[in-house]
């Protein structure tokens, strides 16, 4: 076609594109597929198919340690994601509703620091700081985990919120001010309602990131503060039980559900 010629480079037309793409998808999804399939295995071996069964879901569900870890994970994720979304929302407003100034880029970098610093560095530094705090205050509750999770969730909440704010038509806020809305009223009546999809996206991302975290949690947690991921990691050190597959499958289902939900929420708003 005549219009085809104007395109300088069409990646789809390159030889081997299909093959490479297929290979990538296999690498990504084959292990997950195997994990999910063996969660329904009737046998005890995680590599030997012995027929369909829900027994591992049942035993995981009945396992009190799993229950406790799951509740802790959900609590941690919801609290951290809430705080992170509020903080990230404020940071996003402060960094978008301003004339660009020297140092703004530096602030972006500071806010997004947890994305760039290796997680293990954050984990070790938090371990050292919190162990001091634990000695000084005598408090060793879940507060440290909440703090740590909030901190590394902030950039994940910040990015979608900032994107939403940047794409928002600024004349809308101007129109509100023109129609006698004070800055607070304009925020409440115009900016905030239009920001909701960004906040929801930020919250969901933060929630999933917190739910998933192993490294920082492993370093920061006090004794007996297992979350689901750290519990699973602990289990792997012993005889591997397909219970892990079952838990992971539930995790996966939850993530897929959240992402799908988010997709529909976002589409409706636009």
């Amino acid at each position, binding site marked *: 076609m005549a219009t085809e010629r104007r395109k300088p480079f069409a990646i789809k037309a390159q030889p081997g594109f299909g093959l490479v793409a297929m290979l990538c998808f296999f690498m990504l999804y084959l292990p997950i597929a195997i994990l999910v399939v063996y969660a329904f295995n009737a046998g005890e071996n995680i590599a030997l198919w012995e027929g369909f069964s829900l027994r591992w879901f049942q035993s995981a569900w009945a396992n009190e340690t799993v229950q406790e870890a799951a509740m802790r994970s959900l609590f941690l994720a919801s609290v951290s994601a809430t705080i992170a979304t509020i903080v990230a929302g404020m940071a996003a407003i402060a960094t978008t509703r301003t004339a660009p100034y020297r140092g703004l880029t530096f602030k972006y970098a500071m806010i997004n620091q947890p994305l760039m610093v290796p997680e293990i560095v954050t984990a070790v530094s938090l371990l050292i700081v919190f162990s001091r705090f634990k000695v000084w205050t005598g408090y060793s509750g879940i507060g440290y985990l909440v703090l740590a999770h909030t901190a590394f969730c902030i950039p994940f909440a910040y990015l979608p919120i900032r994107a939403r704010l940047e794409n928002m*038509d600024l*004349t*809308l806020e*101007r*129109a*509100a*001010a*023109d*129609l*006698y*809305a*004070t800055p607070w*009223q*304009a925020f409440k*009546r*115009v900016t905030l*309602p*239009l920001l909701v999809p960004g906040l929801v996206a930020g919250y969901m991302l933060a929630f999933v990131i917190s739910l998933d975290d192993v490294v920082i949690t492993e370093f920061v947690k006090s004794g007996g503060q297992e979350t689901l991921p750290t519990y699973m990691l602990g289990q792997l050190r012993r005889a591997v039980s397909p219970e892990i597959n079952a838990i992971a499958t539930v995790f996966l289902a939850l993530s897929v559900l959240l992402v799908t939900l988010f997709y529909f929420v976002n589409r409706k708003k636009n």
Partner: protein
Amino acid sequence: MASTANAIDARGVSKVFKGAGQDEVRALDNVSVTIRENEFFTLLGPSGCGKTTLLRLIAGFDFPTEGEILLHGENIALLPPYKRPVNTVFQNYALFPHMTVGQNIAFGLEMLGKPKDEIAARVSEMLKLVRMEELKDRRTSQISGGQQQRVALARALAPRPKVLLLDEPLSALDYKLRKDMQIELKRLQHDTGITFIFVTHDQEEALTMSDRIAVMSKGKILQVGSPHDIYVRPVDHFVANFIGETNFLKGKVISSKGGKATVELAPGGTLLADVPEAGLPKGEISLVVRPENATLVKPGKGDLSGTVETIVYFGTDTHVHLKLTDGTAFMVRQQNAAGSGVDVKTGDKAGIAIAAGTPRILMD
């Protein structure tokens, strides 16, 4: 007080924008203008002339570097927008997408803390005014561009502002709709009795709608006057060129008396022309002759003579482009009514008669 009779009084207003590094942009340069109560006032000029900046300063989205802006005699230059009894119709309408048409119109009244029943009554009154009653509960994304325009108008008029600002509100509409809205806006201004300040770069729009026009260029107001004034008595090249089509003739003043001057024209002959109110400029002068004030006559007759270069037919009239004896281009607009004008073809010699009292000397 005399000043209370004026809706807006801008006094020595300048706005300087700091660019990158040492750059400074003087978007408004010592602008003073008086906009009367109840007036349809237009700020006209090309993009970058400062008209939108002036509008934004009146609305309160920006603050002047120097000068003051009085609204009914009170200086509002430094008030935030929500404390000014001034509303704006935005170029892109800026309707709140998460609200219905009715909620959009009610917004300003709610912010002013009006009682619910008053708001409801006012919203239906406004919907009626812009003929949109049946669309009250629609989302703003579910209505056409022309309808959005009306909602924006209704929303801005609902709180009964002292002054309504309109920032090129018709530029997004197609030709036919724009024509209709021009009439609609005139009607609304007449019915509501609110002072309208209208910003446009479209000279035709300005001429047809305004009570008075301020022509702006490069951050300055060049001339303020009625459409007729500005068209018939432009002060300088820019205004004459920006509004309508114009012929410029160069020449020297031989004598002047009582606001009239006898000018010896560069292409030959003499003309009696009006002197600008500010006085005669020094040296060689330019004068302006509108194409409809010139008629073709037999060669050797009239005030000027030239050769026909092109003839362009426009239906109601014909534009005849000529070259004068000294090479100056000159255009004559002839009405195409039966029996009017002289028949010419390309290459013909022709005389040009200029209606007495119409030529005018420019300040530059």
